[in-house]
């Protein structure tokens, strides 16, 4: 078993969804039940693979290094190889993906958004899954880039075909923003290839090979990556595609977007930009930190100004990703651990909130908070779940959200030695203020939608009912994980910490000459 997983454990779950999609392509559109079953079976098998990988990963007990490494030739002429592997940073995110996608299939089982067509919808979902899992597994820059882009098209169609009123605008905006970033990112990857000592796209070798690049070039190359990843995160001021995309996307699209797609950006920083170009990262860090705290405050203020529930959750994403980026900008192992935890927690919590927003929309046919109210009266269980998720989102200790935010704030008290302490401490104060605002807008949202009595127009509406079986099935795993990770965060930190330390080893170990975050080396 172990040997099989080592060889095929990553390739099979990566490409299984696309095989499932190909099978669905051959089946006529009107056999909807069959399509749903194929999609569910495929995603569940992928999730089971995820579980096996997890067990084997724990058994291997080597969290810091890459597990299940596959290294085969792919495009020889450009020295790009098919290299896959996961460590403690990528495995949690990959498992999150493998978990979320089947839940999305279950959630949409009986209510596909207009214009229906489950065949096309589920096929796009499966292609998306391949792209997302592949991105987290790829250990070659070009392979990473390809998977990173594979995600774009299905999401574009998902928003554009199944989205809301303004879907065409939102879909193309999403696409163009991301494409702009990734085009420059690709130029950066190429520059890295040619400037580094070894001509390679292998992410395992590049940290060492890129050390010799002149600092001024490093700063430029990092800039291209910053745009590529920063737009995907999205960081202020590139965030404007996010509220539109989220608001217009169908529920499942929003969930995937929030839970996984945004993480591709932050993951890129943690996995690629910082380990490969630490010196440039140190130059950029204060700027990234600044944009991160602006994002925190701006996102929170944006939330307070929303009338639309889904848009509010979207802006809260901007704020939460601000915390993640702040953690990354500290360039400490502590901060980056917090960031990885924040990614997973945000995926679980915000994914849940988008599920809830979708369910509210389905019952009330509106997300206008001034028309909502009394969810606790009409659908008490759903109301409590919303309350639970709001609490998790505002960072209540004991729930997962806390471990994303609090350590990030703490880490900015003591950033890497090369960074100015005063700057990051002031960021810390601003970020702390952000948590207060977060509590403000989430409680306000809860008050508007869950508390009070239902509006007259909905008081006797038969459409408004409590959560259904498929909703419970889709939500239960997320809710349980939010609680479990909140109570016992070591489950995740235990896996991420060795990997983070390993990815920064070039920089943290002050005994070597490559100790770029060391105060003496930096100044």
């Amino acid at each position, binding site marked *: 078993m172990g040997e099989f997983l080592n060889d095929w454990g990553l390739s099979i779950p990566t490409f299984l969804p696309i095989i499932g999609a190909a099978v669905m392509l051959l089946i006529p559109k009107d056999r909807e039940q069959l399509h749903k079953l194929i999609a569910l079976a495929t995603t569940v098998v992928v999730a089971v693979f995820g579980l096996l990988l997890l067990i084997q990963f724990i058994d291997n007990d080597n969290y810091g290094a890459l597990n299940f490494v596959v290294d085969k030739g792919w495009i*020889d*002429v450009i020295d790009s190889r098919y290299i896959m592997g996961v460590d403690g940073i990528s495995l949690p995110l990959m498992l999150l993906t493998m978990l979320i996608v089947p839940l999305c299939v279950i959630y949409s089982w009986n209510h596909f958004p207009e214009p229906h067509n489950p065949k096309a919808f589920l096929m796009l979902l499966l292609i998306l899954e391949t792209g997302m899992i592949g991105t987290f597994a790829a250990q070659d820059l070009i392979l990473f880039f390809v998977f990173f882009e594979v995600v774009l098209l299905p999401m574009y169609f998902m928003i*554009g075909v199944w989205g809301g009123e303004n*879907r*065409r605008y939102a879909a193309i905006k999403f696409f163009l923003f991301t494409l702009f970033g990734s085009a420059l990112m690709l*130029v950066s990857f190429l520059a890295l290839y040619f400037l580094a000592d070894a001509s390679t796209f292998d992410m395992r070798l590049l940290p060492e090979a890129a050390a010799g690049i002149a600092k001024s070039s490093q700063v430029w190359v990092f800039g291209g990556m910053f745009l590529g990843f920063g737009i995907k995160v999205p960081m202020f001021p590139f965030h404007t595609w996010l509220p539109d995309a989220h608001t217009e996307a169908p529920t499942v699209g929003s969930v995937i977007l929030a839970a996984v797609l945004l993480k591709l950006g932050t993951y890129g920083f943690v996995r690629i930009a910082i380990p490969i170009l630490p010196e440039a990262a140190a130059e950029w860090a204060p700027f990234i930190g600044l944009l991160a705290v602006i994002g925190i405050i701006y996102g929170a203020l944006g939330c307070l100004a929303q009338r639309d529930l889904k848009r509010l959750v979207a802006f809260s994403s901007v704020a939460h990703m601000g915390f993640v980026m702040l953690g990354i900008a500290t360039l400490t192992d502590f901060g980056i651990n917090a960031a990885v935890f924040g990614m997973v927690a945000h995926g679980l919590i915000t994914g849940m909130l988008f599920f809830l927003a979708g369910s509210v929309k389905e019952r009330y046919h509106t997300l206008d908070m001034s028309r909502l109210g009394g969810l606790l009266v009409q659908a008490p269980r759903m109301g409590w779940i919303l309350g639970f998720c709001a609490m998790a989102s505002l960072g209540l200790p004991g729930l997962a959200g806390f471990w994303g935010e609090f350590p990030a704030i703490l880490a900015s008290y003591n950033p890497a030695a090369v960074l100015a302490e005063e700057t990051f401490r002031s960021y810390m104060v601003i970020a702390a203020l952000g948590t207060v605002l977060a509590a403000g807008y989430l409680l306000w949202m809860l008050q508007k939608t869950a508390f009070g009595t239902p509006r007259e127009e909905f008081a006797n509406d038969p459409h408004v009912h409590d959560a259904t079986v498929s909703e419970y099935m889709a939500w239960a795993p997320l809710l349980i994980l939010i609680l479990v990770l909140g109570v016992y965060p070591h489950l995740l930190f235990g896996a991420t910490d060795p990997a983070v330390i390993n990815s920064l080893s070039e920089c943290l170990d002050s005994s070597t000459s490559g100790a770029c975050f060391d105060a003496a080396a930096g100044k």
Partner: protein
Amino acid sequence: MLSALPSIVGFVRPDIDWHAVAPELTLLGVGAVVTLLDIVLLERGRAYTSALAGIGLLVALIPIVTLAADGTTREMFGGAFVVDDFALILKAMFIVVAYIVVLLSTNYVAEGDYWENEYYGLMLSAVMGMVLMASARDLVTIFVALELLSIPAYLLAAWRKADPKSNEAGLKYYLMGVFASAIMLYGMSLLFGLAGDTRLSAISDAVSGSDANPVVILGIIFVIVGFAFKVSGFPFHMWAPDTYEGAPTPVTAFLAVASKAAGFVALMQLVYAGFPGRDDVYQPLLWILAVGSMTAGNLIALRQENIVRLMAYSGVSQAGFMLAPLAVAGDIGGEALSAVINYVLIYAAMNLGAFAVIIAVARRTASGEIRSYAGLFKYAPGMTVVMSVFLFSLAGIPPLGGWFAKFAVFRAVVEADTGWGYSLAAIAAVNSVIAMFYYAKVARMMWFEDVPEEADTSSLRVPPSLVAALGLTAAATLLFGIYPAAITHFTDGTLIALP
């Protein structure tokens, strides 16, 4: 008495390697048979012509395969005609492209009641010109090849005699083409005057050592500009939209892919075999052409309402991408050549595919308006998916073939490691985003919009030859994207053999 003639004028018959010229001769033979068929069988011959042309093209592939298997570089006529890897891969491409164009034309020509024999006869002659171009390493041979491929194309563009638009297309193409030929010929005469020889190797020796000689600079510029017309590079692209719109759509596909590729073949030979020592002249010129083409083509394409005109301007922009590696050719050498060949091959697959869809859809809508694609997904989902594959491939989205073509271009210009190279990379990056906008506009029409009220929404019937063309091009587009080694296996290290 005739046998005595050579000895009188001192003419020695050059050695002819029949194997090396077999592809050209096959095409010549098939073209002659197609024409004879018309004379002998008259109307009865019409039904066989397209099949004969198609089979003839496939037969012409056989000597190319045997030549490739043989692997030696063959030279004839003192190096004026060379068969090397570079020539073979492009000859194969021209023939496969022509075969797909025949597939596209079969129903179009038969149902439009056009003359079939002439149509295919002219097309075969143009293909012969292209195949010859891939081997031409001599100014006169290049010129003959160019005219051999251009003159039939002028006629084909005006094939729909009753339609004034088609007449305009043919006339405009003809006038602009002749104008370009004249400029090029003038440039060639300047270069010949300097070198005293028409072979590119001799030209190369002559121009390398003549630093600031304005005659050399002018000659190089004129020759390159002449081919800039052929590849529809800005600002010499003006004929393309009108010609593309007015010509029969299969001919448009032929012009947009094969004819453009022939222009690039000539440019590559000139840059690598003719002026390798003068990158100080051709690099800035090609840089300007590349940046101008990709930017202007894109910006004008944004405003197009007609799908064929959109494809014309997109073709201008794509030409800019193909020119880009040549603008750093002197700095990085062979890498740029592989990048251009990769791009030309991948572009052929995806662009032909897009035209196949346009032809298939026009059979229903009888319209070239982008609006007529509204709601295609509702009644022709397969066609919509395939068209999306081609459009997003043209835009360069992985894992479709176009990404690798664009990637190879980026790689080449970044590798140059010069200000010119990096600025070209940044401009190309921005342009690939702009291009996405108009490709996505067509995709949006097909996927997101509702079907117009009056439209016929019964499922679309596609003739088998078009299905075959779509299948081939779509499979190639996906294969090149997922496994680029399928193409780099042939193009990597392909160099123009220098005598």
